């Protein structure tokens, strides 16, 4: 496979189907984008609920988070793809990817949001209440804006995980980048080397800026906290 990377005709072959690679990459982007939207919505709501006073709401969020964090994404995807049709529910692969990856990452983002809210001193809730803010107003106007700084780096890391996890679509022939790279090589002249290299490179291009930014932002944040202390 490594030798294939230095074989020009295999690259020529790959180049001739660049449009298909581009389309598969777009599918991955599409799934990642909508899954991220879904995950952010679910994560923000579930995160706020898990920091609420209602014991029942907290319990519901707990069950959601524990279930999705402790079972494989692959089994969730297989369940929707293979098992739900028996119950009369048939979904296309791309919506399955968006739904499953979104729900899965939502559980992680919910934990990120909860940690962020819990790091804000409790007194602020009382102070806001004494000034006549409702619970929703307190959350939206006072608490959440303060958590943004601290939760951005872990959020970026979750976004990277989400992008990587969209490759799960390869397991149900979802037409994404991972699936197509594998299928193209298998169905052509077994040019796995160039195909996987391009596939990895495209994922890397998507993820590296995020991880790089998250790390430097985190270091800057830490330095400013230490600077403040000194």
């Amino acid at each position, binding site marked *: 496979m490594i030798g294939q990377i230095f074989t020009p005709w295999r690259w020529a072959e790959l180049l001739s189907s660049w449009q298909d690679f581009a389309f598969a990459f777009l599918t991955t982007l599409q799934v990642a984008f909508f899954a991220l939207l879904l995950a952010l919505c679910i994560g923000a709501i579930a995160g706020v609920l898990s920091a609420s006073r209602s014991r029942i709401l907290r319990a519901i969020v707990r069950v959601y988070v524990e279930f999705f964090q*402790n079972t494989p994404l692959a089994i969730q995807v*297989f369940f929707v793809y*293979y098992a739900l049709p*028996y119950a009369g529910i048939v979904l296309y692969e791309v919506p399955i990817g968006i739904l499953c990856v979104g729900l899965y990452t939502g559980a992680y983002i919910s934990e990120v949001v909860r940690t962020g809210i819990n790091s804000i001193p409790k007194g602020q809730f009382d102070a806001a209440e004494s000034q006549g803010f409702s619970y929703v107003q307190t959350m939206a106007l006072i608490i959440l804006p303060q958590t943004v700084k601290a939760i951005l780096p872990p959020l970026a890391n979750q976004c990277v995980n989400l992008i990587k996890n969209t490759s799960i679509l390869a397991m149900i022939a979802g037409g994404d980048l991972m699936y197509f790279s594998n299928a193209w090589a298998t169905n052509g002249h077994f040019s796995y080397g160039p195909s996987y290299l391009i596939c*990895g490179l495209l994922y890397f291009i998507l993820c590296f800026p995020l991880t790089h930014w998250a790390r430097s932002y985190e270091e800057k944040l830490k330095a400013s906290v230490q600077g403040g202390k000194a």
Partner: protein
Amino acid sequence: MNEAINAVFTKTNMIYLAAGLLKTLQVAAIAILFSIPIGMVLALARSYSKGIAGKLAGIYIELFRNTPNLLWVFVCFIAAPFGSDTARCASAYVLFTSAMMAEIFRGGLNSIPAGQFEAAESQGFSFIGTIWSIIIPQCMRNTIPTMMSQIVTVIKDTSFMAQVAVAELLYNTKNLMATLYVYSGHPITTAEVIMLFAAAAAVYFAINFTIAAAARVYQARMAKDTGKR
């Protein structure tokens, strides 16, 4: 309902699923055992070497952190120099998880004050001696909860092997779904399918939830200890 339970949870089926679970745990164990020392070496190189070793460790970590685990399962399944499918897949998990562990340990190393090196040197410790008996133990202790959540991730991600037909738990579950009619004598029913997937999910959940809960207990105890000091 009872019929479905009787059809799914037969002795043969249970043995078949248990064999899958064994494969899952086997690969996860290999990945964890190898990736902890490799990850530690990578993290040490990245944090304390200004030269070529630090650069190489950095490239390795970034390469694996920013590409999907599933890609490496595919790559190693074809290209890794091992005889068995399981070993080739396991090598993919070792490669990938090492980078993740390295990133976790980097966080642990960052939290150790630089003054400890000077203190150790003044007590006659060599650089290697300081790393081995002072830095590594602290780093390991501080990162145990994060390491445990990475272990949960590894156990979950072994299910990717279903894609390359390695008979782990998810693959056997899916396979059983396709062949259940042979044993039961009738086309598989909705209740049976859901029961089957629920059983497999419950097994994954039981293992992972236990590890996650243990990590939380450990973390709470650690926070209490720090508070006392």
